[in-house]
């Protein structure tokens, strides 16, 4: 049993622990690589990186399978990776290549893999809330056992769509878990300015659902609260709201001048690195051996290198792709 920062205890099999570490590491390495490739001008457009928030996506996704759905945000890489989307295809997508998860037509803010239950990153803040309700409705209507997890930011909590989505999920008792990733800022605007409530999780009461705040850096704590919410949803008891409070290591988008936070804040927050904390904890309590973790690090490094090579060496879409897939049946 592993103690969580909330004071609870979770039991996680060794295999699953390794999976958790691997996914968190893969996310971190992916984002670090993207940051570099972006700075080097290899990746066009703009990217919103998930580094620092790995424990949220992974702690939740540890409870999901391919029959479960998630909806995501503009900061979606971590959700994709935790849900099992191929990092090769993701990287190729960021490069705008035909081999990308979206054939190069979506880019960072739209990576999706419906087959894996990943219903898309989303360029519209709060845009995923209603989609998650819809996926939950499908599950319930077709009598399936799956759940849908809806990730949204603290900034998104102020969008009307999230209000409507939470109310709908509640009155229809849908198997939806709402996860507010409160990384303290919406772009440069602090959540203490934009939100009128002490904890975003307190808003759960407005929809008659359980709400809980959890530290975003402690994957065990996230795992613990996610377990409760996911089980509740699977039992047909309706939605929950989890607020995971943490920190993004990079700027809002890569390249942002970061003037809205101080070096001291940054240092304080970075001290809560979910990966470092995980390592320390599992080593200290001898749940995993250092070798095993190092081996994961090596594998991840290889995966990222491979993904980058794959992306670099892939071809751009053919001109004809411009007019394909506007509709199903004809261009």
């Amino acid at each position: 049993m592993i103690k969580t920062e909330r004071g609870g205890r979770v039991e996680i099999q060794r295999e699953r622990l390794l999976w958790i570490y691997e996914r968190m590491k893969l996310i971190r390495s992916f984002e670090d690589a993207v940051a570099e490739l972006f700075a080097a001008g290899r990746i066009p457009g703009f990217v919103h990186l998930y580094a620092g928030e790995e424990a949220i996506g992974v702690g939740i996704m540890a409870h999901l399978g391919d029959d479960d759905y998630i909806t995501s945000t503009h900061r979606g890489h971590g959700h994709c990776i935790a849900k099992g989307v191929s990092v090769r295809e993701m990287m190729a997508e960021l490069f705008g290549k035909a081999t990308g998860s979206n054939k190069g037509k979506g880019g960072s803010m739209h990576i999706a893999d419906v087959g894996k239950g990943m219903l898309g990153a989303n360029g519209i803040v709060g845009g995923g809330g209603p989609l998650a309700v819809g996926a939950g409705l499908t599950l319930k209507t077709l009598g399936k056992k799956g759940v849908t997890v809806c990730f949204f930011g603290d900034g998104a909590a102020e969008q009307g769509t999230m209000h409507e989505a939470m109310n709908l999920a509640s009155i229809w008792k849908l198997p939806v878990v709402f996860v507010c990733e409160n990384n303290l800022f919406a772009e440069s605007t602090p959540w203490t300015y934009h939100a009128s409530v002490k904890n975003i999780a307190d808003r759960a009461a407005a929809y008659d659902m359980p709400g809980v705040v959890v530290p975003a850096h402690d994957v065990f704590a996230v795992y613990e609260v996610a377990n409760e919410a996911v089980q509740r949803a699977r039992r047909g008891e309706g939605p929950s709201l989890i607020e995971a409070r943490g920190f993004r290591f990079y700027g809002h988008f890569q390249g942002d001048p970061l003037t809205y936070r101080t070096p001291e804040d940054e240092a304080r927050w970075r001290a809560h690195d979910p990966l470092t904390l995980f390592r320390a904890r599992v080593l200290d309590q001898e749940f995993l051996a250092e070798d095993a973790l190092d081996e994961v690090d090596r594998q991840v490094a290889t995966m990222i290198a491979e993904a980058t090579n794959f992306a670099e060496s892939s071809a751009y879409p053919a001109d004809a792709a411009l007019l394909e897939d506007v509709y199903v049946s004809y261009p």
Partner: protein
Amino acid sequence: MTTRQITFREAINDALRQEMRRDPTVIVMGEDVAGGASLEHIEGRQEEAWGGVLGVTKGLVQEFGRARVLDTPISESGYIGAAVGAAATGLRPVAELMFVDFFGVCMDQIYNQGAKLRYMFGGKATVPMVVRTMIGAGFRAAGQHSGSHYSVFTHMPGLKTVVPSTPADAKGLLAAAIRDNDPVIFFEHKLLYDVEGPVPDGEYVIPLGQADVKRVGDDVTVVAIGRMVPLALAAAEDLAKTHGIGVEVVDPRTLSPLDAPTILNSVRKTHRLVVVDEDNPRCSVAADLVALVASEALEYLDEAPKMVTAPHAVVPFSPVLEDLYVPSAERIGHVIRTLMGHEIGV
């Protein structure tokens, strides 16, 4: 194929029933579409439930139950977005946006999510959903309940847009819209609901993207949309009698994708074009069709094309003003006569 004389409203109800029977993944959702069916005292006598504000979905909840006919809160972004999410994961939702005027509270889910998922995902998603919505002035419903604005949806890549003008078309096109694998916006003119017409019994589907020549004529092509079709036909009959003018009335039925060939061929035959659209004129479907013909068949045009539309103004409440606002058969007739002026000596 046997037909029955039923109303436009019943024809839509028919199509919904037909498709819900055929495919268990078709669901209907919207404000009051099951109309209080959740209330205890209605249990067992669900014929008393509303069936939408104008009764179009009446009786569906009786046959299909509340799991497939869902009342929604007044949360259009929420439930229309839910329709998108449901469509992407295995259902075929038919969501009702009560009046098209309300698109402003939910357009993001329609055009940024529903319409774009497939393209942005590289073809790896389908969103087979329909949004049914009421359009049209003439109901004394004033500035926020009388718009048409199909132009806004026709503008958007990824959406299909359908405006039926007869009960039979309403049935056949709605069935096609439900079977279609793309998001379709289906516009129902509220003043057509009580109009009766012959509608084929049993399964009936009209492919999207096919215009219908509602009346053949040699002198002038009138392309009319929705409720403007019966008005154009009335004007045509009158002009045939009074001036011997042969008006061809083309009903595009589907605005996106547009059956351009049928329109262009008609103009190539008649050499004259009038477009009748009760929407506001700027960036309208009327302008779109005139631009199409001017770009593709300029050399066939003997006269400058004419648009008969609402003015660039909000729909006024006062009946006297609203009657001026909406194109009438008289106005359509007048414009056609003017266009034919030198031929018929007016």
